[in-house]
């Protein structure tokens, strides 16, 4: 039954691709959402035995994909606690997003193409998560990349969207290449691509800190960084907002960016063997979450704010990996999936209501006009900015903040970064909320409230993003560890440096305080003293900083200078064909010689004989010269 989970979306995608044109929209919706719903239901059924203990494992060998010598790769699926968490998020959130899309995309001409791509996307992601060998995982990985390309460039008539799609595809490709190399190396050393075998063999093959394993881990990290939009390959994600909003929700919450997180979680044994890589993960996470947080502060496009916030939140997850808090990262991923999908879909509802206006400064005052959207959006925002006690985001993020310090691998620097990130998160989130829903009405459009198909998923997600937090409570508050216990069989528990309830309280209170401070500043900034903030931001340094942050720390410009421009220049140079010119010249010379020779072929017999005579003269002369003179 396991194979049905990825097979259903694939099958639905196939049907939609082949017969999409002849189906009406209702049928398309039923097929697309139905397949996702059944997949989600199957996940629940299969997940039931897992609730008692996370030890349960389902392995299914479908068929042998390829076999060459000792190498064989099968279509093998494997479901354990870790992949179940992912599969659950993907199918469940994916299903909600599909339902939402039926409302969001209702007026789009390419309705069936959209759902075909979405299904394919989810299917590829499920394959990635369920794969038992790295080759199949890589297959899903690339499938996800392809679908992201198709969906980001969904409205292909605008060249900018095509550009964004290409950018996403190419930037992630950098990471994919690194990952492919890592796979080659793993195969070279272990002789297999079965994940479990590799994980079993790795500790015997390599001592901790061995340079080979460090290299492999770093290459895997490169792949994860590319897919999860972390520094330095994060630039594609903000541009990926060119796609329809449900796509953004899907990319950010359920698929694509979580692929990198999954990869690291899957291969955590390798990372544990490579402390340098693990530190790298933590540093990348910490730096990314800060940079992305700053960038999110100054964006004007509501979706770009969310995009940067995703980068920042994934940064939290990476930080958690880096300090060895595996289950905390997964926990954050799950809650993040809920509230980020909620936020994106809420933003989508706002955008639809505003007739596809995405600039926050042109919104405002929507609280009265769209009360339902406002409340769910507020819940999502609260969760994102981790308002204490009532939101899931608080429990998951707080765990990371605390573990960043207290874990064996923890460091004060990580903790500072995490807590600063929390502050920034609260600030940009509520800046967005205030700009969008409070303040004067900035637009003359009369917003129309979204329909039920869009609102019901939002309610469900709002519920989830509040309740999901209570499966894992910190020591200071009840100490419920359902989630991490459950994952314990797949992912090792975090090792604490010291257990100090007092310190933990301090950390939590500080984080909570900073969150509220951030919200207050956002309030001041947007509602109370917008003029003052405007003046403040007009100061030369602030202007420069604003510009820098707005452009995402100018990474795009940097890459343009470093990579794109030299490449374009080389391409230009090549268009004039330096190398080809050599061959053209050769051809020209040949042609020229041919013409000369063709002129000698006059058809006059006597000339030919003359040639023979001359040849004889020359040969004899040479002969005489060599032999007798």
């Amino acid at each position, binding site marked *: 039954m396991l194979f049905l989970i990825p097979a259903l979306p694939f099958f639905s995608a196939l049907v939609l691709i082949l017969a999409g044109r002849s189906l009406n929209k209702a049928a398309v919706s039923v097929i697309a959402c139905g397949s996702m719903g059944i997949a989600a239901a199957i996940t629940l059924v299969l997940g039931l035995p897992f609730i008692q203990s996370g030890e349960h494992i389902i392995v299914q060998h479908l068929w042998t994909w390829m076999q060459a010598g000792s190498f064989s790769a099968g279509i093998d699926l494997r479901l354990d606690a870790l992949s179940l968490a992912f599969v659950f998020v993907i199918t469940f959130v994916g299903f909600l997003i599909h339902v939402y899309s039926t409302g969001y995309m209702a007026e789009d001409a390419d309705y069936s193409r959209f759902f075909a791509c979405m299904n394919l996307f989810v299917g590829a992601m499920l394959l990635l998560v369920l794969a038992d060998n790295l080759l199949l995982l890589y297959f899903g990985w690339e499938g996800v990349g392809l679908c992201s390309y198709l969906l980001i460039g969904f409205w292909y008539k605008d060249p900018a969207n095509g550009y964004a799609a290409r950018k996403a595809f190419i930037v992630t490709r950098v990471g994919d290449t690194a990952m492919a190399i890592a796979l080659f190396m793993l195969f070279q050393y272990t002789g297999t691509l079965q994940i479990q075998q590799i994980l079993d063999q790795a500790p015997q093959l390599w001592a901790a800190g061995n340079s080979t394993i460090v290299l492999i881990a770093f290459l895997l990290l490169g792949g994860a960084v590319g897919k999860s939009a972390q520094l330095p390959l994060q630039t594609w994600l903000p541009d990926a907002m060119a796609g329809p909003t449900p796509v953004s929700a899907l990319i950010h919450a359920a698929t694509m960016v979580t692929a990198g997180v999954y990869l690291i979680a899957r291969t955590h044994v390798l990372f544990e063997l490579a402390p340098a890589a693990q530190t790298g993960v933590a540093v990348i996470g910490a730096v990314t979450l800060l940079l992305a947080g700053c960038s999110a502060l100054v964006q004007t496009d509501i979706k770009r704010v969310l995009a940067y916030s995703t980068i920042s939140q994934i940064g939290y997850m990476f930080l958690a990996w880096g300090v060895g808090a595996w289950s905390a990262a997964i926990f954050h991923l799950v809650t993040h999936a809920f509230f980020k999908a909620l936020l994106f879909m809420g933003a989508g509802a706002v955008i639809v209501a505003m007739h596809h206006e995405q600039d926050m400064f042109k919104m405002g005052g929507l609280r009265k006009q769209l009360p339902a959207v406002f409340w769910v959006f507020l819940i999502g925002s609260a969760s994102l900015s981790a308002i204490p006690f009532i939101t899931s985001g608080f429990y998951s993020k707080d765990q990371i903040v605390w573990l960043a310090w207290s874990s064996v691998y923890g460091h004060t620097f990580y903790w500072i970064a995490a807590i600063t990130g929390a502050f920034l998160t609260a600030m940009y989130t509520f800046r967005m909320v205030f700009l969008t829903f409070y303040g004067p009405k900035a637009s003359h459009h009369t917003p129309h409230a979204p329909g039920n198909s869009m609102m019901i998923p939002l309610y469900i997600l709002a519920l989830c993003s509040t309740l999901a937090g209570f499966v894992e409570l910190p020591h200071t508050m009840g100490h419920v560890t359902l989630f991490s216990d459950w994952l314990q069989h797949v992912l090792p528990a975090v090792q604490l440096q010291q257990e100090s309830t007092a310190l933990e309280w301090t950390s939590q209170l500080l984080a909570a305080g900073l969150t509220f401070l951030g919200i207050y500043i956002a309030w001041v900034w947007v509602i109370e003293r917008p003029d003052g903030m405007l003046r403040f931001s007009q100061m030369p340094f602030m202007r420069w900083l604003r510009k820098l942050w707005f452009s995402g720390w100018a990474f795009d410009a940097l890459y343009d200078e470093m990579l794109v421009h030299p490449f374009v220049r080389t391409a230009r140079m090549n268009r004039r064909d330096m190398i080809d010119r050599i061959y053209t010249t050769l051809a020209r010379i040949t042609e020229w010689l041919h013409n000369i020779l063709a002129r000698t072929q006059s058809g006059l017999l*006597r000339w030919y004989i*003359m040639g023979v*005579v*001359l040849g*004889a*003269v020359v040969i*004899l*002369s040479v*002969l*005489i010269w060599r032999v*007798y003179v």
Partner: protein
Amino acid sequence: MGVFFYITAAIAVFSTAMVVTRFNIMHALLYLIVSLLSVAVIFYLYGAPYMASLEIIVYAGAIMVLIIFFVMMLNLGPESTRLEKQWLKPGMWMAPALFCVILLGELVYLIAQNHTPVTGIKEVTPKEVGRSLFGPYILAVELSAMLLMAGIVGAYHLGRQQPKTLHRFLQSKPS
């Protein structure tokens, strides 16, 4: 025999030169027959009487008769002689002749370099020739027979006067 040789050699060279320089083709042919006859004499002097008779019969006889018949068939008269005169200008033949003379010089030089002492003329009897012809050279004999056969068939085929055999490239122009 030295005197004989030089006389016949002189005749041969002279008559060949005349062949080359004649404008009337019949004259040229007659001179060519003289030249061939003198070469036959030289063959005889070099101890190859059988070859000498063959030379006379086949070359001077059969082949020349063939060419003469041919010329008669084409009915070439004084017109062609005039044309020949017109074609044969000093400017045209000087340069090729010069090269050929150079070639000749080189050949003669090479022959003169060969210092093998002349051991005198040894006669090779027709019997010996026959033995080696049908001994080691039997395959070559067969081949030359094939060649002659091909020559006959080819000549018959080419000699047929059929307007249809016009080459397709030549058809466009009225001939």
